[in-house]
C-alpha cells in the first residue's frame, strides 16, 4: 500500500474490506481516495493480499 502526504509504503493484510484496512490505520474514509490498478474503489470493496493500493488524502489547507 502506498500512502501519500507524506509518501510511504506499508504492508497490510488483505482478505477484507477497504474500510477495515483504513480503520486499522485510523484513516477516515471520507478524507482519502483509494486507488487500485488506476481505478477508484469505495470502502465497501474487498481487497486481496496481492493488491497494491494508493491512499491519497484529499484535505488541503492554507490560503486560496
Amino acid at each position, binding site marked *: 500500500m502506498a500512502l*501519500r*502526504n507524506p509518501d510511504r509504503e506499508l504492508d497490510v493484510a488483505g482478505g477484507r474490506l477497504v474500510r477495515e484496512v483504513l480503520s486499522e490505520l485510523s484513516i*477516515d474514509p*471520507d*478524507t482519502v*481516495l483509494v*486507488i487500485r490498478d488506476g*481505478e*477508484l*474503489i*469505495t*470502502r*465497501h470493496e474487498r481487497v486481496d493480499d496481492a493488491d497494491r493500493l494508493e491512499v*491519497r*488524502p*484529499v*484535505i*488541503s*489547507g*492554507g*490560503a*486560496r
Partner: protein
Amino acid sequence: MKCKRCGGSAVVEVRRHNAAFCKECFPVVVRNQVRRAIDEYEMFERTDRILVAVSGGKDSLALWDVLLEEGYRADGLYLGLGIGEYSDRSHERTRAFAGDRGATLRTVDLDKTYGYDIPLAGRKGARSSCAVCGLSKRYIFNKEAHDGGYDVIATGHNLDDEAATLLGNTLRWNVEYIARQAPVLPAEPGFVRKVKPLHRLSELETAAYAFLRGIDYVVEECPLVAGNTQLRYKEAMNAIESRSPGTKAQFFLGYLDRGMPIFHTAEDRVLLVACANCGQPTTTTFCAFCRARAQILGERLVPAERAETPEELARQLADEVLPEELYGVGAEAT
C-alpha cells in the same frame, strides 16, 4: 455498491447524500452541482470573461475543467509563490493542463513582480506565511482581473474550505468576517466580482472528479501549511462528519440559507479610497498588501505629501509602518 443514477458499479460514495456513483455518472453529478451554484447565485453569464485562480491543486483545476467543459470563457491565472520544488511542480502541472485543453494561462511571479516570495515573507514579515500568501493572492488576483478586463474571478473554494472558515469565524464571533462569507462577493469600484462555484462540493468530491477526469494535479500539500488553523478546523469538522454525515453541508449551506441574511445586517459599509502607494482600493491610506510588502522588504511607506484635513493626517500617521512591524515581533511571526 450500485450507482444511484445508472445502477452500474459505483466508484465514489457520497455519504451525506446516502448515494454512490459510477465513474461515468459522477462527473455529471459534479457538473450539475456546479451549475446549480452558478445559477442559484447568478455568478456569471455565458458572455462574461472569467479568470480562474489556479494553483495546480485538485480544486482549482477541477473548477477550470468544469467551466471549460460547460463552454464558459475561462482563462487561468497562476501565481508563482517561490516555494521551491512545490511551486515548480505546481506551475508545470498547471501549464500542462492549459496546454492539453488549448486554454489561456496567465502567470505572475511574485518575486519577479513584487520583490518577495512566500518563504521570505514567512521569515521577514510580521504575518504567518499563510496569511501573507492569502493576502498576496487576493490582491494580485484582483489586480490582474481588473487590469485584464475580466468580469469575474473564480476560485476553487470547496464545501470543506467554507465550512472550516465559518467554524473558525464562529468560534471567535468574527461577525464582520461571517457577514462577508458568501459564494459571491459583488463587484465594487476597483474590485472585480469574486465567486466560488465549488462551494456545494466536498474535498472528496472535487478530488474524485479530478481523478476521474484524468487531471494530473499536485497531490502533495504545500510544505509551509503544516499545522495551520484552517487544517485544524477541517479535522474537527471531519470528526463530527464521520459520525454524522451531512453535518458539514448543513452547517455551511444552512448558513447560506438562514444565517447569511441575518449576518448581512451586521456588515458595515466602508468607505474605500485609493491606496497612496499602488492605487488599489483600500479603507486605509496604504492597502494591507503594500503594508505587508513594505514590512517584508524593510521599506518605509511614505504618506501622501499633504493631508487635506487633520483627520486625514491622523489616519496617514496611524497607517505608517511601525518599527516592530518591520522586524516581525507580531504573534503570527513566531
